């Protein structure tokens, strides 16, 4: 089974470079090959989860065996957390790619869109799988440069300006990450993550390591859009085409931002109490400021983009509470519960934010308007879009029995058990504010008086409906993850690799 691990990177890369060559001659080649590739990778991920991951599977690229206990190859590591993230990425990629089959018809360069889309997914898969620091940087750059081009895909004024802003800020963040990798290499003379973990465990307080940790928080924090590094996100996510918005907001900021932070901070570094406190504070700030800024927005996609900042704050707060408990040597069960809440909210947010962006794109596809004051009364003419958008809004606000309720409940219970009462209170208040602005979105966009200037309103085509219906079913279906039987199979391996650091070192 280990031989199949590099397929996650080879297949999207091969598709991305076959499309310009063969897509000229055969019409419709690009749509079928991307859908088939992502469907295959999704089936492979589900098969890996059903087999169960007890200890991490590794694959050494090129077959270079360690020389005298020093690892010299680039490792691809598949453990509980990696397979969990790979499932999410490939699921949202398949559904967004399927949605894009109808949506992209209004642009002209369809070949380039699918090639860049496959390249972005190849980069994200590479970041999740890799066990080597510089390889992480290379795959991160592949994914991010493809996303720069995709944000500016329809070449209007706002899209170009948003892409330029995104590129300059993202470029500086990549430079900070490269600088931190340089500092780590200078100290430990190796690039393998597990090897650095053994070397850092032996040493103690070191000023250069703490500096490199702070630079890494700044660099990856900008990719994950944590306050105060969030300035690019509202422009970029609202100006991109809708399937790209759902990919960016749903998986890109998590796969290259949050995943990289939690992999490096839990499994590689020896955390001190102050760094954990910094991370949790940034999470709480993101939660509060993102919500407060979202209330006053009148553009659908800008409101959803600010709401993304807020929900990412929930995830970082959940993970940060677990980190705080681990550094003060508290109760490991509470840390496990808090990290479980954070990861559960990660998968939930990918599903319902993806669905919200896809339904906003459906509204824009039919009416051409994104301003909330000019829309209204769409629920009678577009039943699928409005009902799936209603389900996603209820899920993100935390209404039972949808999945958002259970993940927020777990985070709040873990905060109360760890005696951080203020954080639990803030989480509850922000959840109520989230409900407020999503009710505003629903009222102005779908219910209320109809705007008579919009004519020939029909439902959107079949491929767009299919993606939205599947995601809406998942919104209810994912709340089954709280049941102890399914939780053991899916989430426990992911949480275990973060709590027990020694599990990751088994790959050496």
């Amino acid at each position, binding site marked *: 089974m280990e031989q199949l691990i590099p397929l996650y990177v080879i297949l999207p890369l091969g598709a991305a470079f076959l499309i310009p060559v063969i897509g000229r001659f055969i019409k419709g080649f690009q749509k079928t090959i991307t859908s088939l590739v992502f469907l295959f990778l999704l089936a492979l991920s589900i098969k890996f989860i059903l087999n169960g991951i007890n200890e991490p599977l590794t694959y050494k690229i090129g077959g270079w065996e360690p020389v005298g206990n020093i690892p010299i190859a680039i490792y691809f590591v598949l453990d509980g957390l990696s397979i969990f993230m790979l499932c999410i990425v490939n699921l949202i990629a398949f559904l967004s790619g399927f949605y894009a089959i109808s949506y992209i018809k209004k642009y002209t360069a369809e070949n380039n869109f699918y090639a860049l889309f496959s390249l972005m997914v190849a980069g994200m898969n590479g970041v999740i799988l890799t066990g080597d620091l510089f390889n992480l940087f290379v795959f991160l750059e592949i994914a991010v*440069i493809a996303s720069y081009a995709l944000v500016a895909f329809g070449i209007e*004024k706002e899209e170009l300006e948003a892409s330029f802003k995104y590129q300059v800020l993202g470029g500086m963040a990549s430079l900070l990450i490269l600088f931190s990798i340089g500092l780590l290499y200078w100290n430990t003379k190796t690039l393998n993550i597990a090897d650095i973990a053994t070397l850092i465990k032996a040493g103690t307080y070191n000023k250069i390591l703490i500096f490199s940790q702070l630079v890494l928080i700044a660099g990856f924090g900008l990719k994950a859009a944590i306050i105060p590094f969030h300035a690019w996100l509202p422009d970029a996510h609202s100006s991109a085409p809708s399937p790209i918005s759902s990919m960016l907001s749903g998986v890109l900021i998590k796969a290259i931002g949050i995943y990289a932070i939690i992999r490096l901070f839990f499994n590689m570094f020896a955390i001190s109490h102050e760094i954990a406190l910094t991370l949790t504070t940034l999470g709480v700030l993101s939660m509060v400021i993102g919500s407060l800024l979202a209330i006053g927005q009148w553009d659908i996609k800008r409101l959803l983009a600010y709401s993304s900042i807020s929900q990412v704050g929930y995830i970082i707060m959940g993970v940060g509470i677990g980190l705080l408990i681990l550094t003060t040597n508290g109760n490991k069960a509470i840390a496990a519960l808090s990290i479980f809440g954070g990861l559960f909210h990660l998968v939930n947010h990918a599903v319902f934010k993806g669905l919200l962006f896809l339904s906003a794109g459906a509204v824009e596809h039919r009416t051409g308007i994104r301003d909330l004051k000019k829309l209204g009364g769409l629920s009678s003419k577009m039943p699928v879009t409005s009902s799936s958008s209603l389900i996603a809004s209820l899920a993100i606000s935390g209404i039972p029995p949808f999945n958002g309720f259970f993940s927020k409940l777990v985070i709040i219970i873990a905060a109360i058990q760890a005696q951080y009462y203020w954080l639990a209170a803030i989480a509850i208040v922000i959840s109520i504010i989230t409900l407020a602005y999503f009710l505003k979105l629903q009222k102005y966009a779908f219910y209320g008086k109809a705007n008579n200037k919009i004519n020939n309103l029909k439902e959107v085509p079949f491929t767009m409906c299919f993606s939205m219906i599947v995601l809406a079913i998942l919104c209810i279906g994912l709340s089954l993850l709280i049941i102890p039987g399914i939780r053991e199979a899916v989430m426990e391996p992911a949480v275990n690799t973060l709590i027990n650091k020694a599990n990751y070192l088994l790959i050496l």
Partner: protein
Amino acid sequence: MIVYLLCFILFLVGLFGVLTKRNVIKIVIGLSVMEFSLFLFFALIGYIDKGIAPIIVQNIPNAKFVDPLPQAMVLTAIVIGLATNAMLLAIAIRLYKKYNTFDIRKINSLKG
């Protein structure tokens, strides 16, 4: 020690360019100068005292080489920097056609 300080000063020169210049092309050049300072830092990390260039020739016995791994990393990073610059310049040219100006203070139609 002083070489690392000069590297940092080059980084600050690039940062000054990104932060204060108004022309879009000058911002791109400032970002490029920041990248080059990082490449210089990487090449300096691998230096071992009295080492020679890491190329194996047939009949020179065991010589002391400098570390070749940062040099490989710098080559890869240069290619990535090239892709970033090409992307930025393509967007800058199209931005000129839409807004008719290169001044970054006038390109602000996205607010709020």
